[in-house]
């Protein structure tokens, strides 16, 4: 068995004390995770978790092992890191597949200008899969969407961008200067995949519900075909696309919040993180995260009559 890999699984379960949550963090299904923990227990000849209570608990042996296991996992990572440095220095980057092409290009170009001797290899990966990839060392740094829960990862400065709505140009709402979420009633919504962007999904749909928009159906995908066809609307940054109209959302209720994320900080990661903040501000119109404005609720007397 690959002991380091099994110890990595063990440390994550030990942090979460929940096999389901740990599996999500590791980007895998729960049954194989449980199986691997069982194999590790067989290998070591002790039970590491007490699964009898309502909540999973570390056994005494598990508690003794967890510190050592972390140490071993960190050393193994460091080893890989060193090897990677030796082999010509690449920085593996994850970006959400729906990040604008021009922004990805600007990120690569900006990083190259500042770090000519490091090769940046970007891959399109949704946030949840980036968390797993960062944990496993498959990528070095990512651009992830918030809200996100991923213990063990570190995040750069969070940047925000108010989102507008993308409509088919024949949509009656396209004639208005701006659109309120409540105006979207009756329209289906296109969003990135829920499994890939669970935080974005939950936050966006909650905000829609609060503002009077409950989409009859939420489609999942990254292309804009459904919007173009008039079958759904989508939220996004201002864009020009034939047949599609972008309108700001009244009150700016929907925001995209992103940051860089990494697990092992290296010079290249720190360099990329700084370039990313600058590029996202300049090329993608993102701004520093400000305190969320207090939402004003009208007192129209009919609401209490």
């Amino acid at each position, binding site marked *: 068995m690959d002991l380091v890999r099994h110890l990595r699984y063990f440390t994550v379960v030990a942090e979460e004390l929940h096999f389901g949550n740990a599996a999500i963090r590791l980007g895998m299904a729960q049954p194989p995770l449980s199986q691997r923990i069982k194999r590790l227990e067989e290998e070591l000849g002790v039970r590491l978790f007490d699964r009898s209570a309502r909540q999973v608990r570390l056994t005494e042996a598990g508690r003794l092992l967890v510190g050592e296991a972390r140490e071993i996992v960190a050393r193994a990572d460091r080893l890989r890191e060193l090897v990677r440095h030796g082999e010509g220095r690449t920085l593996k980057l994850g970006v959400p597949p729906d990040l604008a092409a021009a922004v990805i290009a600007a990120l690569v170009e900006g990083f190259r200008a500042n770090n000519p001797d490091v090769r940046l290899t970007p891959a399109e990966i949704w946030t949840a899969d980036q968390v797993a990839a960062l944990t496993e060392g498959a990528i070095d740094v990512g651009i992830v969407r918030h809200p996100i829960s991923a213990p063990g990862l570190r995040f750069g400065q969070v940047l925000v961008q108010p989102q507008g709505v993308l409509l088919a140009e024949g949509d009656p709402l396209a004639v208005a200067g701006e659109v309120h979420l409540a105006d979207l009633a009756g329209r289906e919504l296109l969003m990135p995949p829920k499994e890939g962007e669970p935080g974005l999904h939950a936050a966006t749909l909650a905000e829609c519900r609060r503002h009077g928009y409950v989409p009859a159906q939420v489609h999942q995908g990254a292309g804009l075909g459904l919007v173009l066809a008039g079958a759904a609307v989508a939220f996004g940054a201002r864009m020009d696309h034939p047949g599609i109209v972008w309108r700001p959302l009244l009150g700016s209720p929907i925001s995209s919040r992103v940051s860089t994320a990494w697990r092992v900080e290296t010079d290249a990661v720190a360099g990329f993180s700084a370039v990313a903040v600058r590029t996202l501000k300049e090329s993608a119109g993102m701004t520093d995260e400000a305190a969320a404005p207090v939402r004003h609720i*009208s007192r129209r*007397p009919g609401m209490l009559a």
Partner: protein
Amino acid sequence: MNEPDLAALFGAAGVTGWLHATDLRSGREIGLGSDEPLPTASMFKVPLMVEFCRQTDAGLLDPASRVTVGAADRVTGPTGLCAMLDDVTISLRDLGHLMITLSDNTAADALLARVGREEVNAMLDGFGLRETRVRQSCRDIYESMAEDAGHGWPYLDPEDVARLRVLDPPRANSATPRETTTLFGLIWRDQAASAESCAWMRNVLNLQVWPHRLASGFPYDDVEVSGKTGTLPTLRNEAGVIEYPDGGQYAVAVFTRSVSTALNQPRADAVIGTAARMAVDHLRR
């Protein structure tokens, strides 16, 4: 950006419409017949409220002083004191509250009797609002309609309606759309009276109960609509201020006259909101 076709919008709802809207921060404006003197109906209660506040600011009236409104004071009307059966003792400022939030005619006349018609007009002169006039109390309005038509409410015959003085600007309570948004701007900028009084006026206007006109154009939890309606046979008006979540403030005055004399015309009420929304949307582009 081309201006929206407001005339076509009003026409499709079976009314003739006049409108003025202004961005209270930038001064940008949009209008249709903005300077036309038009009958205001119950919207005259807004300048009456302003002058009431100025007299309380000046110490001439005590806003908390109580008056008793009895049977002889009761004026025709569907709401508030008009519809009650027994004497009511109430403070002057609470009369003002009923007059604005429910368009209570009895409360308005009780207040007008203490504030004075000429005082209201002198205040309007002082602000340069020379087309905005208060000529009739609520009782005058109802009595003149009965005289002109030769019978009491309802007034559904187009020939009766054509004779009504209350619909003839030089003889009725009147204003222009632009002067109306100007007056609302003064209230929103703390210039109509003391800051404290203006805050009270904004609060009362915000608590107006009617949802079918201006407010219907902004059916959102996070947009505030404060205003005052005015209604007479074939006449449906509302003026007020729309406040957006980003702090934008827009004074809007919409005056309409329907071709039909039918009393229930939801489309004619709703077009006031739709037109206001289009105007504000235009000002925000």
